[in-house]
């Protein structure tokens, strides 16, 4: 049936997928160095919006380091850094509000998928994301015809990831291209994926090893074990979105 080609549920995800994925971020280890932000942008062709648009609050990084302080001057105490990206909710509020199925759910992997070429830019998903994890292409940031300063930068683009044009919503994908790559390697070597074999760009770049990635449907993995410790928590847990990113904090 020709329909299968257009249905991610039937096509890749259910047959070849090797499990549900999750991430653990240790806030006690995070130094706020922004290396993950840079690595993510490089890996996923996230555009630089420029000074002016950044001033308008249109940064497009898929991951951001939130930093807060408590107390009032001069007794200011920094709280721990909080890297926030798409939480890959099990019950994602961003998904049902899309009128054209541009944000759908991969049942088998429990990931939120964003289909760029289906997006028509209503931006409802971004409004309905309680984590503000989605970013929007306000302009053709990657188009060298519109931004001459980019001409020399064209070669940095990652060929595994689509370059998005203006008017399209995007967000962290858990480096799905890396998951796929590892899955393919494992399949060709006729074995299961090892724990810690899939490393998203942010985790790879983190000098403090604050980010761990792995399967959450397997209780023996690092992420599953970290997620059941008493330090574990989720962002805005009370909303019932069941996010797949676990934060560890308060242990010291």
């Amino acid at each position: 049936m020709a329909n299968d080609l257009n249905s991610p549920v039937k096509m890749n995800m259910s047959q070849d997928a090797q499990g549900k994925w999750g991430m653990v971020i240790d806030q006690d280890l995070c130094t706020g160095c922004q290396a993950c932000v840079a690595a993510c942008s490089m890996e996923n062709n996230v555009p630089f919006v420029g000074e002016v648009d950044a001033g308008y609050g249109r940064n497009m990084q898929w991951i951001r380091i939130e930093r807060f302080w408590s107390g009032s001057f001069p007794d200011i105490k920094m709280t721990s850094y909080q890297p926030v990206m798409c939480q890959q909710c099990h019950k994602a509020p961003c998904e049902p509000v899309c009128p054209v199925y541009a944000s759908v759910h991969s049942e088998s992997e429990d990931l939120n998928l964003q289909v760029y070429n289906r997006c028509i830019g209503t931006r409802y998903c971004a409004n309905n994301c309680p984590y503000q994890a989605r970013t929007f292409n306000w302009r053709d940031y990657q188009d060298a015809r519109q931004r001459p300063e980019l001409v020399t930068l064209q070669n940095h683009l990652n060929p595994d990831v689509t370059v998005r044009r203006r008017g399209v919503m995007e967000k962290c994908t858990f480096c799905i291209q890396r998951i796929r790559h590892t899955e393919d390697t494992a399949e060709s070597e006729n074995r299961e994926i090892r724990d810690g074999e899939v490393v998203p760009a942010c985790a790879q770049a983190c000098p403090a090893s604050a980010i761990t990635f792995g399967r959450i449907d397997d209780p023996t993995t690092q992420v599953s074990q970290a997620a059941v410790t008493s330090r574990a928590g989720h962002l805005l847990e009370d909303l019932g979105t069941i996010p797949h990113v676990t934060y560890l904090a308060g242990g010291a």
Partner: protein
Amino acid sequence: MSVSNTLLAVFEDIEPAADGIHKLHELGVADENMNVISGIPIRPAILERPSAVTRVGQIALAGAFLGLLLAVFFVWGIPYLFPLDAGGQPVYPWPQLLIIIFEMTMLGLMGFAFLGMLVDSGFPSYTPKEYVPDISDGRIAVLFSCPKDEQKKFVDALTKLGAKSVEPAEARQL
């Protein structure tokens, strides 16, 4: 039926028109051989006429039913053909179905009420018809057919009752 002629009697007001129609009944013109053309809607009872038959209601109801089926197809049929998971919501949701059913039923109802009005009245039609422009100035025209040889009798009777003119009706471009 013998050779008959169609006449168009134009009245200034409702009262003489009602009298005229009463007279026509007396002279033996059946209701189905008569029609009233007016610039405002007039209750049939005022003119001693039977109520016109309309199928607009039935057509509108049929449209409403079609709209309902279409809504069910939209909300439940599409996911059946292309099941996609979104936000942990059921693939065949009830609340959404109710909303779309309401909208599509109403669209069907009103759209077909309009179409029914067109079909039942034979609109749009641009063929010549029996009509005088005076009607939209508030005059009332009575269109009736009578035997050709008795035409004079009818004309006299209606003129006496206050008809402005009683003339053989000719179809003309509106």
